[in-house]
Every structure is written in structure tokens, then in C-alpha cells.
């Protein structure tokens, strides 16, 4: 049996770093304050491999890219995701493109960590779920775990991956605890979603903080006799298309929930996926419940209002199931004499 230890997501990340630094002498950690905050790593692996940097995200990221091409495996902590705006050239134009443009001469095994999400009332310049921007950019991988075990297993996988991986840590989860496998060969493969709850009436797909929202909604729905399947994507690029499609083909209804805003977000991609590749199975419109298309406010009251809540998910599913239940009417004129059904308004609007 796998031995487990209870720890927070933050501790799980630290353990992953420690194990990978132990495992591979090419791994190094750089960032503003990484050496201050993780003194034990400096002690054990030396100041060469755990480097406080100047406050300069562009050169931190650029240095990681150059070092990765030259045989090291840098992990950089860019603190909050919006600070990646300064590192965009290094991440998007260099890390994501230079392997391809060089005809495969170089590889860029690096990990860039950024925190984000509601919970700290810090406002849009710290709290911006911009992971979809990196999903859209070529040549990168993107992960965003929901459970401490995945924080560990995905960070280890990211460090071992030969490609640049963006690792987003949802602020609101960092201090939540969970059981984490001790094994130092515990890896969560990038690109594999986790089925968090099995169900048959609707598929709820989410990642990071809102996985818990979906699980809570699923419990509420169970009380009302509706069986919801809950998928935690874990990796946003590559997306586990099969896991989502398989579930949707079974449940025939899809609700996607995330804190990031909707336009061109992960939810858009998944809805498009379902509409393209699971169309015949769908029995109801695909619903996205997302953060608003607005910067995140600092005020606690507005932060709360911006995040999808379990009740919203539950209400949407109830509406969806009702839609499906009165089935053939919505098939409109595909059925003899049928009239066009009006569409229910299912996108959460602010």
C-alpha cells in the first residue's frame, strides 16, 4: 500500500522540489526570495542551486530558458501569475518557439510557477487566472492542480518533462491539506485528468479551486437524485480530451466550471471539444460557469461574487436536466412538426 503523509499543497510542492533536486543535480531553483523562504534547500543543495534573484522577471525567465537549452533543468518561481506579463517574451517567444524554430536542436526543460486566484483580496494585479493565455501559446504545457497529492506529483512530472511547463498554484488551495504519497517516484502524468466522482446524468469539468465547488454541487445534486460525474482536469495543456469526451458521451450533459474568465478560456475549449467531437451524444446545451470578464476586485464582497458557487452549479444542472428530460421537444423541426425551441439562458451572467 502507498504510504501517505498529510500535508498542505504548499508543503507538497516543497517536497516535490526537494525530491527532484535530490534526484537530479541539474535541477535548480531561481526566483525572488526562493532562497529566503526555502532555506533548507539552500542548506542541502547549495546556494548555486537555490538562487534568490534580482527583482526582474524577464531576466529570471530568460535565464531559465537559456539554462534549459544548455543542460540545466531550472524551476523558476515568478510569484503571482500577473507578474508573468514581464516574462512573456521569454516564456512565449523563446521557451515556446525556439525549439521549433531551431528545427529541434534544443529542448527547454523548465518549470515556471505562478500563484493566482481568489482568497487573499489582493486584486487583479495579483489575482488573475490567465492560464488560458499559455494554453493558447504553442510549445508550452500547463498544469493547475486541485489536491496536495497532485501539487506534488505534477510538479515532479513538470520538472522531469523535457518541455517548458507552466505550473499554476491556486492561492486558495495552498494551505489546504490532503494525503500525499511519500514515494519519491510518485509522479502524476501531465495530460491525465482525474475522475473525482462517478456519475451518469451530467459531467462537471473543472480544475483547481472550483473542483471542490463541483464536488459540493455533486453532493447537493445527489440529494435530489441527480448523479453528477466530476472531472478534475489537472493538466490544461495537453488536455485530456479522451477523459472529457468519454464522460460526456456517457452523461450527455456538460457543465464546465472555472474561476478564470470565460472568453477564450478553458471552458470555451472544452465546450468546443464537446460540440465538435461528442455532438451526437449531447442532450442539452453545454454550460460554462466562469469568473466574470472583468479584472478581479480586492474587496472580499466582490471577490466572493466573482467566483462560481456550488449553488450556481447545482441550479444550472437542474435546469439542464429538466431540459433533457422533456427531450424530444428541443429537437425542433428535426422531428415531424416540431417548432424551434427557444434556448435557455445558461451562462452565468453578472
Amino acid at each position, binding site marked *: 500500500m502507498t504510504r501517505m503523509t498529510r500535508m498542505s499543497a504548499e508543503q507538497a510542492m516543497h517536497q516535490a522540489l526537494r525530491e527532484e533536486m535530490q534526484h537530479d543535480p541539474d535541477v535548480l531553483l531561481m526566483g525572488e526570495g526562493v532562497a529566503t523562504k526555502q532555506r533548507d534547500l539552500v542548506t542541502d543543495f547549495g546556494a548555486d542551486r537555490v538562487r534568490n534573484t534580482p527583482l526582474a522577471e524577464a531576466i529570471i525567465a530568460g535565464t531559465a530558458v537559456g539554462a534549459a537549452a544548455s543542460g540545466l533543468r531550472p524551476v523558476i518561481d515568478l510569484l503571482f501569475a500577473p507578474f508573468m506579463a*514581464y516574462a512573456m517574451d521569454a516564456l512565449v517567444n523563446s521557451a515556446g518557439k525556439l525549439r521549433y524554430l531551431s528545427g529541434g536542436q534544443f529542448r527547454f526543460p523548465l518549470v515556471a510557477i505562478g500563484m493566482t486566484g481568489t482568497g487573499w483580496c489582493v486584486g487583479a494585479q495579483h489575482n488573475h487566472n490567465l492560464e488560458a493565455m499559455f494554453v493558447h501559446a504553442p510549445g508550452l504545457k500547463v498544469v493547475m492542480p486541485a489536491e496536495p497529492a497532485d501539487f506534488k506529483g505534477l510538479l515532479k512530472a513538470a520538472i522531469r518533462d523535457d518541455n517548458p511547463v507552466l505550473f499554476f498554484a491556486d492561492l486558495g488551495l495552498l494551505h489546504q491539506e490532503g494525503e500525499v504519497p511519500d514515494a519519491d517516484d510518485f509522479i502524476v502524468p501531465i495530460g491525465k485528468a482525474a475522475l473525482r466522482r462517478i456519475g451518469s446524468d451530467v459531467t462537471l469539468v473543472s480544475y483547481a479551486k472550483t473542483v471542490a465547488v463541483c464536488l459540493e454541487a455533486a453532493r447537493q445534486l445527489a440529494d435530489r437524485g441527480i448523479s453528477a460525474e466530476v472531472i478534475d482536469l489537472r493538466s490544461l495543456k495537453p488536455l485530456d480530451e479522451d477523459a472529457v469526451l468519454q464522460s460526456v458521451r456517457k452523461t450527455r450533459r456538460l457543465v464546465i466550471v472555472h474561476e478564470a474568465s470565460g472568453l477564450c478560456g478553458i471552458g470555451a475549449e472544452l465546450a468546443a471539444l464537446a460540440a465538435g467531437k461528442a455532438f451526437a451524444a449531447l442532450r442539452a446545451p453545454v454550460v460554462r460557469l466562469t469568473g466574470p470578464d472583468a479584472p478581479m*476586485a480586492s474587496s472580499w464582497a466582490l471577490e466572493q461574487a466573482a467566483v462560481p458557487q456550488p449553488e450556481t452549479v447545482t441550479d444550472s444542472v437542474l435546469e439542464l436536466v429538466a431540459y433533457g428530460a422533456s427531450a424530444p421537444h428541443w429537437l425542433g423541426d428535426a422531428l415531424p412538426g416540431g417548432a424551434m425551441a427557444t434556448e435557455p439562458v445558461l451562462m452565468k451572467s453578472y
Partner: protein
Amino acid sequence: MDHEQDIAAGPLRRLETMLLIRAYENQLVELQRNGAPGTCTSVGQEACAVGVVEALDVRDRIVTNHRSAGHLIARGADPGRLMAEVLGRVDGYCGGRSGSLHISARELGVVLTSTIVGGELSLAPGVALAQKMGKGEPGGIVAVFFGDGAACEGIFHEALNLAVHWQLPMLFVCENNQWQAFVHRLETMADTAIAEWARGHGLPVETVDGNDVEAVHDAAIAAVAGIRASGRPCFLELSTYRQRGHFEPDDQAYVDPAELQAWLARDPIRMQRERLLERGLIDAVGLAAMAQHTRERIETALAFAQASAWPAPDSLLEHVYA
């Protein structure tokens, strides 16, 4: 106020403003302990804010950063509306949308604020360009406050080159408080780096004791006059110290206690108080009255902020677009 009067009143007013900033931020610390959002306090840096802001006039504009309480209060911001903002309430300067990290107050000329380190440097040249091109009042300049950390960001270099080359009326104020969050600045740059970097851009550069409010004020008065006369930028590096943590709460376990002690001994408020006592510009009674007045203002502010309502959830989408 005529010049003679100001010579006496200025130092007293500067002491009182520093006391108000300190009291305001100590109140925020206490609020944080009781569950309010954390803040980046400027405790120990009040002389920088007061010395510079008092050298500006109503035509001038201020662009600041995450550690802005001193700049705002020195410019006359209402501690009640500031506190309401920190608490995320509707009566805050930004209706609770900013919180502590990006408070701007257009009515006071504190026009833009970014909590992206270096953001202030990115924005300020545009404000100055607009002033130079006739927006705002004639003769106005822009004072931009930033830290030693921001000086490491590439935008520092770009902003200086643009300001110098385009002859923008800007006062660059680097509050070198020795810290960049959890990293001591000497871990990231040479000791005299910031002034040398600035000097490489060929603008007037002065390094000043940032804990001596009168020295800061004198240097700022001279710099502002120079900028108004020439239309060109100046650079002030104020050496000071961040007495508290980076963000509340912060145990400062990573801080060298001897270094902190040495700077505490040079606390800007203490220094100004001693100077005024020495010069006979104030006595114990006067100091007590000042303290009392400050206390009352903070109490009023707190009551105001706590009574302020939360923003309505359905206002969430207001102000995304003009």
C-alpha cells in the same frame, strides 16, 4: 502662508504628517491581526513621503506603488477613505475595488498606482508627456515613487531613457529601503548601484538621507525647481529602511537584527522630534497635543471605514469599460 511662517510651520507640519502616517499604518497592522487584508506598510519611510510630497504643488501629479500610504496621506488623503478602501468598502477612494495595493485618488493628483513592481515607472512618463503637451496645469511635473527593487526591473532603464531623451518633467524618487520583499537588496545589486545606474542616463542624481525629512525636503525643493526651470527630469535616491515586514503579517525572521536596530535608532519620526525639541520649535505639551490630535483622526477614520458598506455584488461589472 508666507515664507517666514513656513520656515517655522513646515517642520512641525512635517512631523505631524509623519505621525499621522505612522498611526494610520499601525492601525492597519492591528486590523490585519483581526482578519482584515494585509498591507505593505511604509513604517520607517515616512520622511521620504512627507519630504517629497510637501515639495510638490497642486499642479503636480504623483504616481506611486504598493507602499503608498505615506504619499497619499502627505498629499492630504482622508485616512477614513483610505481605510475604507483597504477594508474593501464602497467609501474607499476606489470603491473597494483596489484594496490597499493600487489606491489612486484623482482628486488629489495621485493619478496612477500599480502594484506590479515597475508599473509606476511604466506609467509615469506618459503622465508627464501629457503634462508637457498641455494636459493638466502649466508647469506641472510628475513625481514617481518606486523602490530599490523596481530599479532592477528593465522598465527602470526604459523609463529613464525616455524621460531624459524626451525631456519629460519628472522627479524620479527611489525609496531605497534596502529590501525587495524577502531579499536584501545587496543580494541583487552592488551597494551604490541605483545612483550609478541613474547617472549613466545623464540626468541630475542626488543621494539623500531618506530618514531626515528636512534633508529630503530640501533636496526635493531643489529638484522640483530644477525640473520646472529646465523641463527635464531629476533623480533622487533616498536611503531609508523598511522597519516592518514586506506585507502584514511578516515575522521578519530573515532580517539581520543588528541592521534593523541601527536603522530603528535613526527612525525618521524620532529624528524630527528631537530636532524640533532641540531647536525649541515644540515642547512636551505640543507633542502631546499632536499625538492626541493624530489619535483622534485615526479613531474617526476607523469608525468611518468600519461603518462603510460592502460594495453590492451586482456592481461587479461596473467600471470594466468606460
